[in-house]
């Protein structure tokens, strides 16, 4: 049976959601630029490193390489994006623009016509022409997946000047933009299902688990004669008229005496002890009698008895045979796979949802993210070793993900702080900062006198103790009217909202939109003075609002978009950006358009650290072996600085300015 590769997908024009919808821009085999440059640049993107923690641990001698860089050149707080969300912040860095230029405003955007909530990073369209053949529906033209970020990436500009670049896992680059440079997509890359990542959990104790798991599916299984049978769900089969979900069956044979099991899935057969991870296993989802899609997943045997518990990771795109575009050239992902074996291709692979839902505990979560980390550390050594010209960008996700989940262990005021667990896991954040420091050390060893090292984080971190139901506040303040006031609460996507009597709404983690006439499907606010006055009124009232429990202001600054955004994409963005205070974030319910009764409430989730605040609450870090010429550098200034190092003029549409003395 043949496994479908990307080219065949495109020929067939498959359209199972975003996964089968491919753009045509990344097909030709490319050769990266090979110019020997007089200057070289190594950029380490350490997601989420916080300046306060860095300073404390640096001054205690725990981050010696960063301290060395500070002594050699510079250390500064780094202006983040507004809002300080990773896709937005990294887009600032990639493009040298603010969101008004690159058009990424939030993790979530909306379609104004229908108020539909969409992911901000990639847009997919399905094939419009199909041919019916029996139970199969064969697409005649290809669907398309495209990166919605606007403006040119700095490595595309370097390419214009034949300066080679390797861009490893930078967020907000999925699908990777067209380039001859070597790039591997990072955050935003979906799993094989076309989602941010859905794990599967097989257990005989399914009733113990909340059925509505965000990010996971629970499968109830039965042990019959020391044997368990189930299947891994795969992507929707777009070949079939009924669009049935594909599945891969597997069997588990339990040892009658010991806590050991043999798992058989397709042609793979392996034995796991309780508490053991399987490493990557290939699975093939059949689409038609002669075709299949290849994915990879990991099995973790959590428990054999008395209840059976088996975790299976989200099915990742197989880098050795990618069904979706994850690298440029196509061969780069395959090259890494050949050298290192299969690896996580999913954008944010740390399984925070499995920890949040108690499927994995703290230790198991760390073990899982350590698999991610170790895979990538090996690739860092490989890329650093062969780096001899142009620019190398390397990205670390683990500090961000671990701070999100483990902040409660270093924050005694966290609603979920537990002294016992804090004792066990309280040093994990420091450990990952030390690992980040070891990357800096290796870069220092590699650098010669012509090499500029830039170490940056996209934002810092803050506790997430209290949450703010922004849409509930808008409703209580008279800006949203419900169709049925008795039904306030759990419906997502504003299903109970009377748009003909609603003037503003919030989608995503910081964004507020005015229900504008002529833009929104049922807009009622006239553009011009009416809209401007409404924006000012909402911003003022938001900043004035005090939490009745703590007396704190949940929103530190509410920024009218017209004051913070500029550029060609400014019309697509929100009208107000809500910048939360330290200790605060938007609630879990509000981003998807739900309006629970309370305006403020405790955050009782393990996800206890966050950064979706006002930008001045969570600045990033910046280190270099070169001195800074600015006392307040920002992410987009670093883009301009990179171009400046290579003697390339900064394009007019960039807002950043060079800030490094070369």
């Amino acid at each position, binding site marked *: 049976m043949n496994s479908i590769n990307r080219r065949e997908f495109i020929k067939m024009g498959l359209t199972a959601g975003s996964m089968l919808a491919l753009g045509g821009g990344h097909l030709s085999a490319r050769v990266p630029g090979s110019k020997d440059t007089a200057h070289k640049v190594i950029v380490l993107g350490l997601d989420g490193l916080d300046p306060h923690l860095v300073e404390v641990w640096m001054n205690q001698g725990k981050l010696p390489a960063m301290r060395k860089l500070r002594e050699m050149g510079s250390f500064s707080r780094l202006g983040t994006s507004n809002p300080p969300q990773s896709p937005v912040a990294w887009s600032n860095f990639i493009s040298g623009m603010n969101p008004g230029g690159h058009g990424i405003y939030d993790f979530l955007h909306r379609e104004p016509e229908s108020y*539909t909530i969409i992911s901000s990073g990639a847009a997919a369209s399905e094939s419009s022409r199909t041919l019916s053949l029996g139970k199969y529906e064969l697409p005649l033209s290809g669907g398309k997946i495209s990166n919605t970020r606007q403006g040119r990436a700095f490595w595309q500009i370097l390419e214009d000047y034949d300066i080679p670049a390797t861009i490893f896992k930078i967020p907000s680059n999925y699908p990777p933009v067209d380039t001859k440079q070597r790039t591997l997509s990072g955050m935003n890359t979906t799993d094989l299902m076309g989602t941010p990542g859905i794990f599967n959990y097989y257990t005989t104790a399914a009733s113990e688990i909340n059925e509505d798991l965000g990010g996971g599916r629970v499968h109830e299984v039965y042990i019959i004669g020391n044997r368990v049978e189930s299947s891994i769900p795969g992507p929707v089969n777009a070949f079939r008229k009924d669009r049935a979900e594909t599945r891969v069956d597997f069997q588990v044979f339990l040892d009658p005496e010991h806590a050991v099991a043999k798992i058989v899935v397709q042609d793979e057969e392996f034995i796991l002890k309780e508490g053991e991870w399987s490493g990557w296993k290939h699975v093939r989802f059949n689409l038609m009698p002669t075709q299949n899609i290849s994915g990879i997943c990991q099995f973790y045997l959590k428990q054999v008895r008395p209840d059976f518990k088996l975790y299976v990771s989200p099915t990742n795109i197989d880098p050795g045979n990618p069904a979706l575009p994850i690298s440029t050239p196509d061969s780069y992902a395959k090259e890494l796979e050949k050298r290192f074996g299969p690896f996580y291709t999913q954008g944010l692979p740390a399984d925070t949802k499995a920890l949040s839902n108690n499927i994995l505990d703290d230790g198991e979560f760390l073990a899982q993210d350590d698999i991610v980390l170790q895979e990538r550390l090996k690739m860092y050594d490989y890329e650093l070793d062969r780096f001899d010209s142009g620019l190398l960008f390397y990205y670390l996700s683990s500090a961000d993900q671990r701070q999100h989940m483990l902040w409660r262990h270093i924050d005694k005021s966290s609603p979920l702080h537990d002294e016992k667990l804090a004792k066990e896991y309280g040093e994990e954040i420091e450990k990952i900062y030390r690992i980040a420091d070891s990357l800096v050390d290796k870069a220092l060893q590699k650098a010669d006198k012509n090499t500029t090292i830039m170490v940056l984080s996209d934002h810092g971190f803050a506790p997430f103790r209290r949450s703010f139901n922004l849409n509930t506040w808008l409703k209580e303040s008279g800006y949203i009217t419900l169709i049925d006031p008795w039904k306030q609460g759990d419906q997502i996507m504003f299903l109970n909202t009377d748009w003909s009597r609603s003037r503003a709404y919030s989608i995503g983690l910081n964004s507020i939109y005015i229900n504008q006439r002529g833009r929104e499907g049922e807009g009622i606010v006239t553009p011009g003075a009416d809209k401007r006055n409404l924006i000012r009124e909402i911003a003022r009232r938001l900043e004035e609002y005090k939490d009745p429990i703590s007396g704190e202001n949940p929103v530190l600054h509410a920024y009218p978009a017209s004051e913070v955004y500029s550029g060609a994409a400014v019309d697509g963005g929100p009208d107000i950006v809500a910048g939360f205070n330290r200790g605060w974030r938007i609630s879990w319910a509000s981003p998807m358009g739900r309006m629970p009764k309370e305006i403020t409430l405790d955050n009782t989730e393990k996800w206890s650290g966050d950064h979706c605040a006002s930008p001045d609450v969570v600045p990033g870090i910046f280190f270099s072996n070169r001195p800074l010429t600015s006392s307040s550098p920002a992410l987009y200034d670093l883009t301009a600085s990179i171009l400046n190092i290579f003697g390339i003029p900064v394009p007019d549409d960039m807002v950043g300015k060079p800030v490094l003395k070369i």
Partner: protein
Amino acid sequence: MAKAKVKLEKELLEKVKKYAEMSGYSSTEEFITHCLEKELAQLEEADSEEEVKKKLKGLGYIS
């Protein structure tokens, strides 16, 4: 308006007539149309809600 005949069981038809009258509808036809529209709207909403939830499921920042 397009016309189509729909067969209903006698018992159901009696109930429909009774509730249409009780609820103040001007005709049985108006009541049935309203019921169908309401049901279809719910189905359409459910589809789009499910689709959106599915696409965003797994993003750590939202529930």
